[in-house]
């Protein structure tokens, strides 16, 4: 038996001890599924533990009820047993728990059914603290925010963005190739070494009308990047635009999920073993404070998987939870938590405060996908002068073609009719295809009093506490939201909308865009992992995913989490002797 392990239960558990491996990856989703590839290619002996199962093209029926209403019933859903509890502040009552966890389990994780938007962060996102001080003064950093600059800039991450865009397959249009601005793409993006591996997804007549309206306003409109094949790529088919991409798996493998890209490529090297339906319960530690391996349950049996290096890649909430649950004499408050930073600097992306428009004609938005759209980045990050404003950061405006019937019937009625009855029926009959809701992703900062910890009462069926989220949007987020809603209203109005309605900001909730909790940075006192993604305290523990990100930017986190994962894996390969 492994010496340093202590059992949670009263009875000593005799776990089946497996053969020691070089690297064990906890979670084969967006981040773990990417990291497996460079490790396997380097010849390391890698095992990936995944809570879910393999899913195939025939699991992905175009069924709105199954995908969008009933919460992804196709798969083993460990996540749904661990939905975080939530409350806005430490002194406020708990909010209702979500009915369905924001992410899912399965080989490929949430990349199976995500929207696939695959942005690089803008340069400002890495330097929020120093750039704000330089341009506007230190007083403009919102009170109570714990934001720090990243330990490196966009230039450091660029090679990893580049390799991930090619290995998984990202479609898009470059806006800045080595400093040369191309107005076909995002003119605000940082320099990239070359064009995207595939052209952007096609537009629709509606997105073209929206792009024209943006240009009329003097704004820059462009197609966004997507981890979805716009043409045949690596033997996978091009997108069919069938309209069931949001929370739907791809029936033709056009979506560049790690399940159909990096994971099978890693398996081809014969150096990656995939273990499905494996529920990791703790990370184990030896007498020297090094991680010795991982304990997991599969089919009613407990296994101990020893490894030289452990990469924790199970998504923000579960990363934090597994660390806090893995208490030992070396780490009495949870693994890598001797500085009390695990769970701190948590934030979920402000994507609420949407704007919905009603147009005077049918838009034919019945097909397409959330990644088939048009972006405006003029009001994101520090792409505009904030001197006369009372906030920092901003939002990316995104309009896309995507509509399904149950959602259409649940449309906003703009206060014109009741929610049911003949008047409602007449309204939806006329307007079901005349509305559009913009996706507005906005800068969200970490604050002292926004954090994750273990819920003192609520437990999963194994008896382990779930995560408790104590977090809310602050003044800066509310001001951005109002400002961005004004811009979106201008845009819809310029495109001919007859009315718009603004949704409230609401409170921060568990999200598919959950950041922090194991933040990356040079300062050991305020960060859990170093600039390479390895624990400041347990040197052979790497952490992957958006839990290491200290800022959100105004765009989807997945590609950044994947670029960071590749970078951590690359560093591990190059420093194997020191780290293992």
């Amino acid at each position, binding site marked *: 038996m492994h010496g340093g392990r202590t059992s949670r239960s009263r009875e000593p558990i005799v776990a089946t001890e497996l053969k020691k491996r070089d690297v064990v990856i906890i979670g084969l989703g967006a981040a773990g599924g990417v990291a497996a590839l460079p490790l396997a290619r380097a010849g390391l002996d890698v095992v990936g533990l995944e809570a879910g199962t393999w899913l195939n093209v025939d699991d992905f029926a175009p069924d709105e009820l199954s995908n969008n209403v009933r*919460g992804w*019933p196709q798969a083993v859903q460990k996540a*749904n047993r661990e939905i975080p509890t939530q409350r806005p502040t430490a002194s406020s009552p708990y909010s209702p728990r979500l009915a369905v966890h924001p992410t899912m389990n399965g080989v490929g994780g949430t990349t199976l059914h995500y929207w696939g938007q695959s942005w690089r962060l803008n340069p400002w996102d890495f330097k929020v603290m120093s750039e704000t001080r330089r341009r506007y003064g230190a007083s403009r950093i919102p009170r109570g925010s714990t934001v720090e600059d990243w330990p490196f800039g966009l230039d450091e991450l660029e090679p990893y963005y580049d390799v991930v865009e090619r290995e998984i397959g990202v479609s898009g249009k470059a806006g800045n190739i080595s400093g040369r601005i191309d107005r076909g793409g995002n003119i605000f993006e940082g320099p990239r070494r070359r064009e995207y591996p595939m052209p952007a997804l096609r537009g629709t007549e509606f997105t073209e009308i929206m792009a024209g309206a943006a240009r009329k306003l003097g704004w820059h409109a462009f197609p966004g990047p997507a981890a979805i094949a716009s043409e045949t790529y690596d033997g996978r088919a091009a997108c069919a*635009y069938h309209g069931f991409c949001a929370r739907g798996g791809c029936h033709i493998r056009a979506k560049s999920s790690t399940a159909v890209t990096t994971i099978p490529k890693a398996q081809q090297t014969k150096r990656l073993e995939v273990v499905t339906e494996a529920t990791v319960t703790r990370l184990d530690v030896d007498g020297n404070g090094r991680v010795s391996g991982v304990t997991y349950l599969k089919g009613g049996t407990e296994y101990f998987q020893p490894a030289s290096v452990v990469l924790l890649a199970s998504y923000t909430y579960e990363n934090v939870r597994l660390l806090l649950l893995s208490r030992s004499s070396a780490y009495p408050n949870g693994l890598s938590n001797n500085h009390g930073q695990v769970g701190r600097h948590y934030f979920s992306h402000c994507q609420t405060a949407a704007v919905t428009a009603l147009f005077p004609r049918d838009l034919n938005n019945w*097909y397409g996908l959330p990644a088939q759209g048009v972006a405006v980045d003029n009001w994101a990050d520090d792409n505009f002068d904030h001197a006369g404003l009372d906030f920092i950061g901003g939002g990316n405006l995104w309009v896309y073609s995507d509509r399904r019937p149950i959602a*259409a019937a649940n449309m906003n009625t703009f206060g014109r009719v009741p929610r049911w009855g003949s008047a409602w*029926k007449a309204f939806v009959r006329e307007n079901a295809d005349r509305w559009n809701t913009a996706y507005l992703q906005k800068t969200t900062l970490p604050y002292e009093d926004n954090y994750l910890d273990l819920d003192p009462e609520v437990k999963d069926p194994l008896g382990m506490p779930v995560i408790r989220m104590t977090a809310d949007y602050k003044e800066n987020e509310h001001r951005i939201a109002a400002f961005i809603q004004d811009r979106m209203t201008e845009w819809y109005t310029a495109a001919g909308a007859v009315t718009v309605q603004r949704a409230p900001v609401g409170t921060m909730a568990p999200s598919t865009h959950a950041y922090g909790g194991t933040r990356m940075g040079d300062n050991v006192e305020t960060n859990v992992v170093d600039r390479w993604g390895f624990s400041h305290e347990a040197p052979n523990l790497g952490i992957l995913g958006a839990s290491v990100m200290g800022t959100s930017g105004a765009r989807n986190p997945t590609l950044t989490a994947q670029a960071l994962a590749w970078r951590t894996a690359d560093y591990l390969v190059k420093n194997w002797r020191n780290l293992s």
Partner: protein
Amino acid sequence: MSDDTPARLSRRALLARAAAVGAGAIIPIDLLRGPIAEARAQGARPLADAPETLTQNEAATLEAVCARLIPTDANGPGATEARAARYIDRALGGALSASRDAYRANLAALDTFARASKGAAFDQISVADQDTVLRDVEAGIPAGFTPGAAAFFNLVLAHTLEGTFSDPYYGGNADFVGWDLLGYPGVRLAVSGGEQRMDRKPARVRRSAYDHAMFAKKRPARARNDARRPHKPFA
């Protein structure tokens, strides 16, 4: 259908007879000549199947609620023709089984409230009175609902929308009447650029997702005794 239409034909009698005959059994001639024929002649909805999960009374009340939420009117068929109540009844034995108790308690509470405020069971009062009752329930006014009237209203409304606009595979959206109401052109596995233009709508496809061969084998369960792959979101 105007609001002062007399009470609809009693659903309870029809459902009781249907149950007596048994689901799937041959319907006797006299039944076809009787109330069904009358009902059809007067434009009422076709006879429902015997309920799979709900009791006769519950099913009758639910049918009446669905009929008011998405009425059959000058804009065409509604939740009745879509058979939204059949969808709900089936789903309460499967994917929505967690809501079975809420329906049991609150359909009874609805009848109690209808009797107290309008003098008869919900499916026996006029549609104008039904609408008044439902507006009160929506506003959370009557007591006796668990956890509350407004919550139950929201639950039934959500399920009625699902039953009217979901894939017909699940028992609702019969004859695609829900999708036709919205102008949804239907499930396609591939969509061309031309089919995303605004000036001409794609032709309507009337096909369930599970009519496509590649998805037929892994159809999700529809009801309690469905032998198909079980619904296991929390497995």
